[in-house]
């Protein structure tokens, strides 16, 4: 299956007259990367004396920070500085927030934490291990608050409020109306509606964030090296936060970056934080994020609750849409959010010709990691609702889903087509793309496979998706979140300046620089192809530099690697720059060759006369003249040493008075279909065939285009089947390791069948459109549609965790045998541990009662208890060292007794904290004489555990807890002189202290 689709770069293809653009030449980047000579941020040397930072993070989803004791940490040898929120506030200002509201957004908690993983302190030391040693010595006192993780829950009355400046957790609420949707809905014969909860996930690059920062106190200027990916509009946010003008923040990127997929935009709060630390420490500071930090706290795509309704004619023609989107941006609205919600604003009708659209967009904050750029950026969320609804419409009307798709497509003759919400779709032929995909992807045969499988009783389904893939973002689309009046006040924002510089050196060799900040996409190779074609050279003759240095290079706020802008905008701009230089060279050469400039061609390393190719001069000779003999150049030629071109497409206008916005410049088309089978035993979704047809305009490098498609497909497959940033109801983060946040591997990812057609974009210099994000938009919903088809169900929630399908496939579970064990009811997201049981203890209730209230007894029966302090008769504090397997650590517990009914019953309430987590619990114990001189102790408990252990040890959490509880009761019974326990036990301190520790910890 592998052989079919891979088109290897051909080594015989390295010469000839064909243009270089369009060929899969070998990448110039690869030799170094394959030999261990990559230059990623952590591979580069640092200035001697550079310090290393680590970050202490909140274990709580929502809590007030009462105090932070950093004394012991500061005293540890090797520690240079410890910064808390107060110290950061002294040298920075809040990050700007993308909506008009009285809220602040800091890169570190000030007096309150709002998500698990939020920075609380930065520790700077001679090396990372020592910094982590010091972090363990910091004692933070928290007062937990109620947390909210569900976007609709956040809007409910009485929900905990994260920011006073966002009343009811609502950061933005805008309504839009295009055409006459009310009339369309009133008159339509059918109305279909779907409710979607799109989950949280992230494209998680294998290289984590890295920042190296220094501060020159004399000039009050910062130098920062970070694997930031843009957009460089964020440079202004960082400079402002650091309280310097932009020319005193020199931001550079390393030559290589280990993947980003949008995610490395989210390094910017850490740039502020580490730069502040460097300023305070007075030395350069380096921070490399570790994987646990990355999963817990880097950035995430938004999760979104959507209700989408359609007014539909009897033949399946969609007449109007009504969108109600509730976007969850996590705990802070970080720049450029709420951009995820507005990136697709012009494209809310997808590939379809729908003139009437109503939209309500709400943005809420919840106790989860703040969101940011992620491959697909708003597309997966929108298309999941839209394309699930198209399938529902087809089923509701008894039509083939493909028929409904085709009935609604934008007509091939209608391009450029202005959507109801304002996008100008540049080009395409969606009908033709579908015809080719159906044929080349053998849909008819796939349908027979489905029929055959079903005849055998197997669960097989087919899904379809049609998607318009926007690329090259309009920097002004985010202002659609403002009203027209607010926008008038703020001034227009629009466009997307791309930059490219072409330089010729004194021996005539060519250098290209762009501010595209690649993270593995091979920009250097493609640019060498583009420029080689202009100059008639070989790609190997062109040296391309894609590092960016804001102090020296040409850049704009649009610079960077996002919104699939490279092929469409950056590569085209490089072509324009090269052509401008070539035009001047032609004038110079024309004089030397005695021909008209219009007769000049660049080919095979020469500048020659078109009519008389023998009349020629070496390219390098002409190219070098500006250096060696500027006086001999024709007056109108100008210099040819260096040319920088800025290009912004005129189509990217600001939102108009009616909120219509052309949110992106180019619009590719994707049509996917797939066949899947659900295993009846494991309920796993197996992809039988996945067909993906792309029209991304002119293809510059087929190998790289297919690489982008495959990579996006694999990430989308992860989003559909495996990946979710899962939170418990209390805000605990549950997927903090790569053993819990599951990325697909070689054994999970099949090869998609990729097909292309090329409809060039009339709006870009090379005719190219973006291609990198499309499958992140199309594939999750295509797989979901196929699973819905296989199971015949309406509601599909991602990721398609096999266990969640059990009820659909099998109905009710067989009951437990009579008199046997019953299953404890649980619900998803509920991490609370509840239990009840009994213990038989020797001694009458009065004796047991006295034991329970006696610190000395407690100390001896609580496993690992060093001391118990009696604060009052009903209030105890205890230090315990707890261990499960190799994991041991110290915890402090605080317990109070309520509702005392001696010697019959008591309620206990309390909590315990340690560096690895915290716990809180409430339990009720009743004592009754057993009639034989002993006591029957009955208990029930309800406990919750959070913090690091919940994030990274979730799988082991329950079992370890039960072990600890058991240990306590065994000890208690033994202390009382025998007896035993039944069921899993409950303990006073054990639940309150040991529960929380489970893996141990310390403080």
């Amino acid at each position, binding site marked *: 299956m592998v052989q079919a689709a891979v088109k290897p*770069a051909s080594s015989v293809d390295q010469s000839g007259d064909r243009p270089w653009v369009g060929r899969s030449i070998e990448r110039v980047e690869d030799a170094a990367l394959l030999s261990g000579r990559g230059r990623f941020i952590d591979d580069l040397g640092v200035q001697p004396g550079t310090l290393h930072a680590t970050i202490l993070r909140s274990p709580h989803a929502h809590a007030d920070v009462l105090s932070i004791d950093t004394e012991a940490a500061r005293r540890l040898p090797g520690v240079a500085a410890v910064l808390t929120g107060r110290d950061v506030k002294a040298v920075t200002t809040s990050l700007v927030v993308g909506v008009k509201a009285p809220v602040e957004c800091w890169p570190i908690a000030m007096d309150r934490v709002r998500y698990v993983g939020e920075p609380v302190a930065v520790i700077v030391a001679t090396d990372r291990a020592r910094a982590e040693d010091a972090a363990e010595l910091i004692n933070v006192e928290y007062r937990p608050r109620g947390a909210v993780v569900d976007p609709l829950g956040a809007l409910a009355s009485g929900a905990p409020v994260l920011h006073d400046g966002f009343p009811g957790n609502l950061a933005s609420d805008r309504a839009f109306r295009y055409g006459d949707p009310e009339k369309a809905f009133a008159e339509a014969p059918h109305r279909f509606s779907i409710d979607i909860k799109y989950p949280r996930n992230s494209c998680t690059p294998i290289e984590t964030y890295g920042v190296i920062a220094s501060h020159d106190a004399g000039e009050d200027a910062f130098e920062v090296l970070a694997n930031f990916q843009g957009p460089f509009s964020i440079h202004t946010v960082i400079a402002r936060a650091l309280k310097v003008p932009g020319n005193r923040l020199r931001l550079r990127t390393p030559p290589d970056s280990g993947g980003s997929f949008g995610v490395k935009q989210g390094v910017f709060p850490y740039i502020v934080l580490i730069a502040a630390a460097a300023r305070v420490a007075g030395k350069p500071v380096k921070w490399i994020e570790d994987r646990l930090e990355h999963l817990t706290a880097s950035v995430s795509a938004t999760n979104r609750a959507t209700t989408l309704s359609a007014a539909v004619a009897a033949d399946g023609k969609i007449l109007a849409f009504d969108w109600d989107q509730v976007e969850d941006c996590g705990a802070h609205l970080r720049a450029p959010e709420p951009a995820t919600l507005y990136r697709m604003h012009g494209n809310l009708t997808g590939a379809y010709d729908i003139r009437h659209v109503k939209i309500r967009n709400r943005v809420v904050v919840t106790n989860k990691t703040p969101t940011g750029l992620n491959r697909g950026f708003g597309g997966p969320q929108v298309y999941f609702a839209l394309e699930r609804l198209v399938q529902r419409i087809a089923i509701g009307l008894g039509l083939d889903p493909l028929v409904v798709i085709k009935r609604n497509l934008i007509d091939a003759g209608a391009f450029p087509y202005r959507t109801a919400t304002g996008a100008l779709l540049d080009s395409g032929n969606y009908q033709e793309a579908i015809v080719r995909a159906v044929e080349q992807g053998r849909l008819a045969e796939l349908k027979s496979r489905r029929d055959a499988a079903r005849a055998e009783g197997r669960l097989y389904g087919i899904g379809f998706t049609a998607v318009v893939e926007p690329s090259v973002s309009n920097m002004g689309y985010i202002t659609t979140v403002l009203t027209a009046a607010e926008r008038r006040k703020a001034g227009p924002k629009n466009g997307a300046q791309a930059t490219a510089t072409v330089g010729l050196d004194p021996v005539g060799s060519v250098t290209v620089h762009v501010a595209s900040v690649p993270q593995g996409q091979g920009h250097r190779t493609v640019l060498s192809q583009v420029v080689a074609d202009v100059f008639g050279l070989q790609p190997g003759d062109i040296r391309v530099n894609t590092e960016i240095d804001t102090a020296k290079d040409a850049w704009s706020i649009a610079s960077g690697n996002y919104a699939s802008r490279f092929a469409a905008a950056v590569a085209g701009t490089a072509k324009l720059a090269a052509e401008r230089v070539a035009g001047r060279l032609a004038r110079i050469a024309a004089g030397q060759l005695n021909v008209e400039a219009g007769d000049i061609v660049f080919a095979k390393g020469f500048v020659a006369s078109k009519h008389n190719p023998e009349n020629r001069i070496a390219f390098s000779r002409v190219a070098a003249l500006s250096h060696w003999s500027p006086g001999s150049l024709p007056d109108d030629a100008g210099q040819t040493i260096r040319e920088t071109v800025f290009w912004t497409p005129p189509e990217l206008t600001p939102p108009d008075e009616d909120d219509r916005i052309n949110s992106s410049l180019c619009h590719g088309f994707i049509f996917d279909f797939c066949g899947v089978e659900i295993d009846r035993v494991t309920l796993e979704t197996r992809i039988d065939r996945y067909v993906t047809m792309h029209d991304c305009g002119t293809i510059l490098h087929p190998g790289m285009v297919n690489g982008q498609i495959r*990579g996006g497909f694999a990430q989308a497959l992860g989003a559909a089947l495996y990946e979710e940033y899962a939170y418990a109801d209390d805000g605990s983060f549950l997927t903090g390791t*790569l053993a819990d946040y599951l990325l697909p591997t070689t054994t999970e990812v099949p090869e998609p069948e990729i097909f292309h057609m090329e409809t060039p974009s009339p709006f870009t210099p090379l005719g190219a459109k973006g291609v990198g994000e499309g499958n992140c938009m199309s594939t999750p919903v295509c797989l979901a549609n196929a699973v819905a088809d296989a199971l015949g169900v309406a509601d599909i929630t991602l990721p398609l965790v096999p266990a969640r399908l059990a009820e659909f496939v099998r109905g009710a579970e067989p009951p437990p045998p009579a008199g046997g064990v019953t299953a404890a009811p649980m619900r998803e997201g509920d991490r609370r541990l509840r239990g009840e049981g009994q213990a038989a203890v020797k001694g009458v209730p009065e004796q047991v009662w006295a034991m329970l209230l006696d610190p000395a007894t407690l100390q001896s029966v609580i496993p690992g208890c060093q001391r118990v302090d009696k604060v009052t008769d009903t209030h105890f504090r205890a230090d315990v060292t707890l261990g499960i397997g190799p994991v041991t650590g110290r915890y402090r517990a605080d317990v109070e007794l309520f509702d005392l009914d001696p010697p019959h019953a008591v309620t206990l309430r309390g909590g315990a904290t340690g560096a690895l987590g915290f716990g809180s619990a409430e339990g009720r114990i009743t004592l009754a004489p057993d009639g034989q001189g002993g006591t029957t102790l009955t208990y029930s408990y309800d406990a919750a555990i959070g913090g690091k252990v919940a994030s990274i040890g979730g799988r082991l959490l329950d079992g370890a807890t039960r072990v600890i509880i058991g240990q306590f009761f065994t000890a208690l019974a033994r202390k009382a002189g025998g007896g035993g326990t039944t069921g899993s036990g409950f303990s006073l301190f054990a639940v309150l202290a040991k529960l929380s520790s489970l893996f141990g910890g310390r403080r």
Partner: protein
Amino acid sequence: MTRLNSNARHAVRFTLNGKPVEAEAEPRMLLSDFLRHQLGATGTHVGCEHGVCGACTVIVDGMLTRSCLTLAAQVDGCEIRTVEGLAPSADRLGVLQQAFRRNHALQCGFCTAGILMSLDHYLGENPAPTEAGIRDLLSGHLCRCTGYTPIIQAALEAAAQLASPTKETSDA
């Protein structure tokens, strides 16, 4: 018996890609950090530090090894191979590396070193691998860029080339 005190740095010596090396490390220093920051062999990358992503995979005494799950002190006296030792010379690529380049089996290249080490080891022991065998091997690595298929293809191609009697010479 060798006992190393936690607070001190101790000499660690081993053979790296055929050459003897030596540097100092505290007992807690991971092999991955030792290679990268003490020896400057930065081709081995660190992606998760809990043994899942595979980026840090090296070969210790002929065994595939997660260098993030190994202490520098543990490999004292061992023979270690890393990505820096794969190419026949600094300006030429080996057969497997060439196959990767030809098939676009890498994009950002961050995970690539570990994958190359796994494949180099595996192809040495399995000269006629199957696609299923390679997929099983590489399920111990995470790559976020490529979707894996070009990697599998490169591995199969390299295996075929290595097995053929006329070995193609490497180029830059």
